[in-house]
């Protein structure tokens, strides 16, 4: 149990959290779950995760905010953060980055719709 890596999944969509958890658990990770940014931070403080998967759009505290807080704290700045973003880069070739293009300190991001297998690869890469 203790040698399993702990991954915290934070998303306001319960079904998505459950599906992600099932996949992660099948790959032998331990999973903690939270459903908004505030709860996410509480979970981090109660038990330090090895990696955080964070949705961008959430009630109370969004993913960008939580990510910033973690990355600016001495204690948690080393925990890898992967952002799940609904904003694709599909038209970053045009000017319109007012919805995306936000600079974040996250280690990686996966745009929705999420390719589950690709997300698992990114998780593995960031745990090395």
């Amino acid at each position, binding site marked *: 149990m203790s040698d399993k890596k702990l991954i915290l999944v934070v998303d306001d*969509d319960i*079904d*998505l959290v*459950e*599906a*992600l958890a*099932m*996949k992660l658990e*099948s790959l032998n990770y331990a999973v903690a779950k939270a459903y908004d940014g505030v709860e996410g931070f509480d979970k981090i403080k109660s038990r330090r995760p090895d990696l955080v998967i964070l949705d961008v*759009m959430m009630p109370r505290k969004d993913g960008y905010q939580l990510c910033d807080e973690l990355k600016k704290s001495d204690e948690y700045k080393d925990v890898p953060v992967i952002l799940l973003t*609904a904003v*694709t880069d*599909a*038209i970053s*070739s*045009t*000017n*319109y980055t*007012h*919805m995306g293009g936000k600079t974040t300190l996250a280690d990686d991001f996966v745009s*929705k*719709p*999420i390719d*589950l297998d690709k997300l698992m690869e990114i998780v593995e890469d960031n745990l090395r």
Partner: protein
Amino acid sequence: MKETVPVVEEPGRSKILVVDDEPRIRDACRMVLSEEGFEVALAADGNEGVQMIREEHFDVILVDLMMPVLSGFEVLSYVRESHPDTVVIVITGYATLEHSINAMKRGAFDFIPKPFTPDQLRAVVAKAIKYNRALQDIADTNSRLKTMVNRLTDGVMASDRDKKVVVANPAFLHLIDYHGEPVRGRAVTDFDIGEQLLTLIDQALVMPDDTFTELTAEITRTGEGGERIVRATCVPFRGRNGVTIGTITVLSDITALKEFDRIRSDFVSMVCHEVRSPMNSMMMQLKVVLDGLAGELSGRQREILERVSEKMNGLTTMVSELLDLSRLESGLIASEKSAVNMAELFREQIAFHEANGARKEITLTLDVPESLPPALANQRSMEEVVTNLITNAIKYSPEGSTVRLMARIENEYLRFSVRDNGYGIPEEDLKRIFDRFYRVNDENTRAIVGTGLGLAIVKSIVDAHHGSIKVTSTPGSGSTFTVLLPLADI
């Protein structure tokens, strides 16, 4: 600089008044000038002359300097004061240079010494008429321009090199909430036009003479009518020798447009979250089930779920593209345009797509003249347009064919076209080809994946550039998409 074609208005018969106390001179003038087709009126002294000038307009007045009662000088002063459009020629009784110079100083256009020959008279009058017409043309052009500028709903202001106002229309003054004294000749800094606009004007003034960029800014103003969002566009204004002599600023009130855009943007985020998110998690759930993490699946169950998965993928892609289009359109409301080197852009795009073409053994060719003047455009939007057209051409062409990109100058436009030898577009589909989600569905294209948004995006970009896009096509032999874009140097 382009030559302006003068608008020739049907000139009525020019009216000439001859004021001289010598009957012999009056009659001689009448004879000569009537023969020339002028309408000639005569006055025997200064008083009578002034009386006639008061009653009707004359284009040219010939006036003797030395007359009893009211001298020619006095007539001249009267005309100069109250009839600026009238040209005065003085007749000097005894050819003293001194009198003539004196009269010229007081505003006479020319002089003719007595005695004169009919030819001399004809020459001096012809010169005066020509000058008068030129004056009239300038006055008409100014009046026409002034009326046009004043009728515009957009605010327009021209300032000179020293940032003094040359002209500002009522809409401009209204948009800066100024309703006071005339503004001509005053410094632009005297008015509350805001830091942003002053910066634009400064930037436009220092822009190198060989570049042309339209500077834009979105300015939020809090004035009498509440908060207003104004889009400002500023360009340098150049004289005959190409040196900047001032700036032209155009203001458009886009408050309503922005409000509409905000509502749409809210709607877009709503769709984003409320539709796409559940679809996302449904796809994840499906994936988990398909991966066997929720128990073994029978072959039939797997088959059905895989098809559900495929359909959901398609839906998700469509929502993404729709959101892209929506975002693109709102972004175009205020995208900055500058002089874009299209020849360079074409070369880059052709190089970029060569590999895609090669996969189908399709050759890409480029035909651009040596010196292609730049277009006034947004660089990234143009890349999007060209990419879309080339991608389509490759997609809808059979293996081994050729896609040609050609560019030319046509009137004041840059005209470029992308031609393929592909499947072509049936005539009934042509007029709807730029509609959103419209796709040609026949045996050749059925297997080609697309959402029907590419050309809609292309058209909205071209429209936002005040350009046009047209398509011609022959089924079985290919299609040509032709785009016209305004040139930067206009």
